[in-house]
């Protein structure tokens, strides 16, 4: 049995699976259920100043892909709409009831020192393990000068982070918005401000769909729609990239990373950890299936780690960062060629038509009817992987390395590159 205990910025939890600041963590009732289900920690839904915000009805939009519901999800919900005092009392009680679980509190108040000072003191009083500064939400609050309106200005990120660090002894997490051109700017600003960790990604600005009958964006509020925050499995690749960017950045070193974005399974979590996240946060997956998904996240991660011989999370933390390089450092002499396992092939022809219509005309059809075969024309195959991706049969098309005897050569060294320098 692998040891899933997790520590991030000094905060301990029995496993790395936390619930992100969002509707699932808005109340003691939900958080209590989550902890009973086995979640290692929560980031309480963002608190703000009283009077509380008011939310609309019709808050969520979703996209279905090939019958899979909620592949992408968006929301126009604001921060907690309950009075500050009610939330603080519940946080205090929850932390008392669940001392071994991590309880962070997400915060969003105007960019004024006094506002932050007041709310940090109140949170500290609950016994919470830390705070997460919500510089991420791209809708509603940003128009009021908060959320991503702060996260998009590195100077503000640094300033508020520095205030908070000077005002509290609690670890400070800074939640970043992906709605920036370069994630390193706000990440480095958080680092400069003294942040203990960054959490990312918050949601991506989006219009999830258009109702073509009513000609309005979804989710629709009385016939009108507004841009909202996009999340769910569809954003995971974006999140992985941004997490890795920060993890690989020497100037951001020393800050922990809490990975967020489309995580629904143990495999997703393992990928984030391998790219530098100390732990992960989940929202959409829980909103889709309920808290029970954590069972398989825990068991699956455990079984996978046992299989790989990883005893602790640290054993594979950042393991994939070493293999993340710039394009120019890839081996231009490396060759792959597609191989079709004829015993597994079901003759659907998707590899052929994909290659024929859109790639390199490297898969031919031999014969017709049920007996037809699809064969790779090796000299035409550029090893792009397209056929293997479209093939619906697991393991039928594989990409085989070609032993061409050529040494490693990157683009910077390649004589075909007009700007090449001599190989060293």
């Amino acid at each position, binding site marked *: 049995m692998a040891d899933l205990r997790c520590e991030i910025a000094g905060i301990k939890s029995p496993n790395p699976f936390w619930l992100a600041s969002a509707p699932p963590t808005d109340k003691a009732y939900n958080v209590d259920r989550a902890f009973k289900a086995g979640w290692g920690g929560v980031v309480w839904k963002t608190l703000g100043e009283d009077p509380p915000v008011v939310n609309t009805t019709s808050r969520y939009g979703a996209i279905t892909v*090939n*019958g899979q519901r909620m592949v992408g999800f968006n929301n126009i919900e604001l921060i907690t709409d309950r009075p500050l005092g009610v939330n603080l009392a519940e946080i205090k009680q929850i932390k008392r009831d669940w001392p071994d679980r991590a309880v962070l509190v997400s915060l969003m108040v105007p960019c004024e020192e006094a506002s932050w000072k007041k709310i940090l003191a109140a949170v500290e009083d609950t016994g919470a393990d830390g705070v997460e500064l919500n510089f991420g939400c791209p809708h509603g609050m940003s128009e009021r000068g908060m959320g991503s309106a702060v996260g998009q200005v590195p100077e503000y990120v640094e300033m508020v982070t520095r205030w908070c660090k000077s005002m509290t002894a609690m670890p400070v997490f800074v939640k970043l918005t992906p709605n920036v051109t370069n994630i390193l700017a706000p990440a480095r600003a958080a680092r400069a401000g003294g942040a203990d960790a960054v959490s990312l990604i918050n949601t991506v600005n989006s219009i999830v769909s258009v109702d073509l009958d009513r000609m309005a964006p979804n989710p629709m509020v009385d016939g009108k729609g507004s841009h909202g925050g996009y999340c769910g499995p569809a954003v995971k690749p974006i999140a992985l990239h941004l997490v890795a960017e920060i993890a690989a950045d020497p100037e951001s070193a020393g800050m922990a990373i809490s990975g967020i974005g489309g995580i629904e399974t143990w495999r997703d979590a393992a990928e984030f950890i391998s790219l530098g996240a100390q732990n992960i946060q989940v929202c959409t997956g829980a909103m889709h299936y309920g808290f029970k998904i954590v069972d398989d996240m825990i068991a699956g991660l455990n079984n996978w780690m046992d299989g790989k011989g990883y005893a602790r999370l640290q054993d594979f933390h950042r393991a994939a960062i070493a293999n993340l390089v710039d394009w120019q450092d890839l081996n231009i002499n490396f060759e792959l060629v597609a191989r079709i396992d004829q*015993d*597994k*092939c*079901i*003759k*659907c*022809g*998707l590899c*052929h*038509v994909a290659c024929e219509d859109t790639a390199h005309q490297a898969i031919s*059809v031999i014969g017709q*009817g*049920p007996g037809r075969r699809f064969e790779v024309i090796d000299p035409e195959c550029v090893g792009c992987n397209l056929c293997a991706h479209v093939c*619906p*049969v697991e393991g039928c098309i594989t990409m085989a390395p070609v032993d061409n005897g050529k040494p490693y050569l990157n683009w910077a060294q390649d004589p075909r590159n007009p700007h090449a320098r001599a190989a060293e």
Partner: protein
Amino acid sequence: MADGVDIRAGWLNGATLAENFADVHRPLDLAGALVEANRCYFCYDAPCIAACPTGIDVPGFIRAIATGNVTGAAMTILTENILGGSCARVCPTEILCQGACVRSNDNSRGDRSVEIGLLQRYATDHVNTATRHPFARAPATGRTVAVVGAGPAGLACAHGLARQGHDVIVFEARGKPGGLNEYGIAAYKLPDDFAQEEISFITAIGGIEIHPDRALGRELSLTQLRMDFDAVFLGLGQDGARALEVPGAGLAGVQNAVDYIAALRQADDLANLPVGRRIVVIGGGNTAIDIAVQTKRLGAEDVTICYRRGPAQMGATPHEQDFARINGVRVKHWLRPLRLDGLDGAVTAAVFATVAQGDGGSLMDTGDEQSIPCDMVFKAVGQSFVPLSDGGPDIAAGRIAVGPNGQTSLPDVWAGGDCVAGDDLTVQAVQDGKLAARAMDLFLQNLET
């Protein structure tokens, strides 16, 4: 009446009968259709298209369902097969499109084919054809065509010709149009008067008149039709039931399966249709399955299909054989009918010789006999085409001889469906009618007067 003949109506109450003769396949709802449509791989040069006798672009219509373009899906189907609605219900898809589906081929271990039949039904059921016929009729040409037989072949041909602007009169020997869809298909495969609804849809294009109770050799002669019309299409069925040459075949309680099925299909109230307590069906085709399952569902206690060869030789598909079994029908193989025993003129038992396959495939009696007590015996040993008596086209192997597009030896007469060689399937009949209509349209365009 332990040993007496027991034939009665009303074994089951109305509610049970209604349940037994309701739709055998539950139609897909939107959610189910989307899940199933998304299982389609959208194959290149898809095998299911080639396996459909009418060549429907199956992946094309399935993708249209998946994208919410149900009208497009239905148009793709109906363009190739105007009887796409009934074919969705009656096609033996397991030996056609679904049999060719790559998800069910030898290498797709453990997978199952896409439910193409159910998806076709979803598309054709959900397109709104009530307000507007999906195809426009070309301006009237003034040419006239007689279609003989209002079954699937004749209806498909009539629609194709009417669409091109020709005026079509369809003559039907029976009291209602539809052919086997109206009189022959098992009731639970085409419930709720679907055959007549589909005909209303087909004829809504205009230019088609249906005249029932008009049969060749009875009210009509081919010679006269050829004089009265510019062209003729023969979409005749197989009206001859093959005889069962055994002693006792004339006993009361012994009848052709197709006659009973026709009566069942036309019955106003199934509770009034008499059926025996114990049934023996002789034959191994789909008609044998249909009569066996329908009598079982009417309330017969004990139904046995007796076939002279093994399961592999049965005309009924494995799917149909399984269907019979799950309906509680017993299927016995290697039984050759010897005689039917009776009492006071009514059948009481069917007696068979047990046979085995000898070298070279011929059947040999093993010397054993089996007697199966019964109240009714249904003969389901096949139907045959009854050739025309006067001035008919050439016949080959017992059916009308035709060229590739259904043209007969007579220059202005085409034929298709069960009266010509080929698979006796609704969908094949539709294709015959469709292709003949195209050829006839060319012929009519080139007529000089």
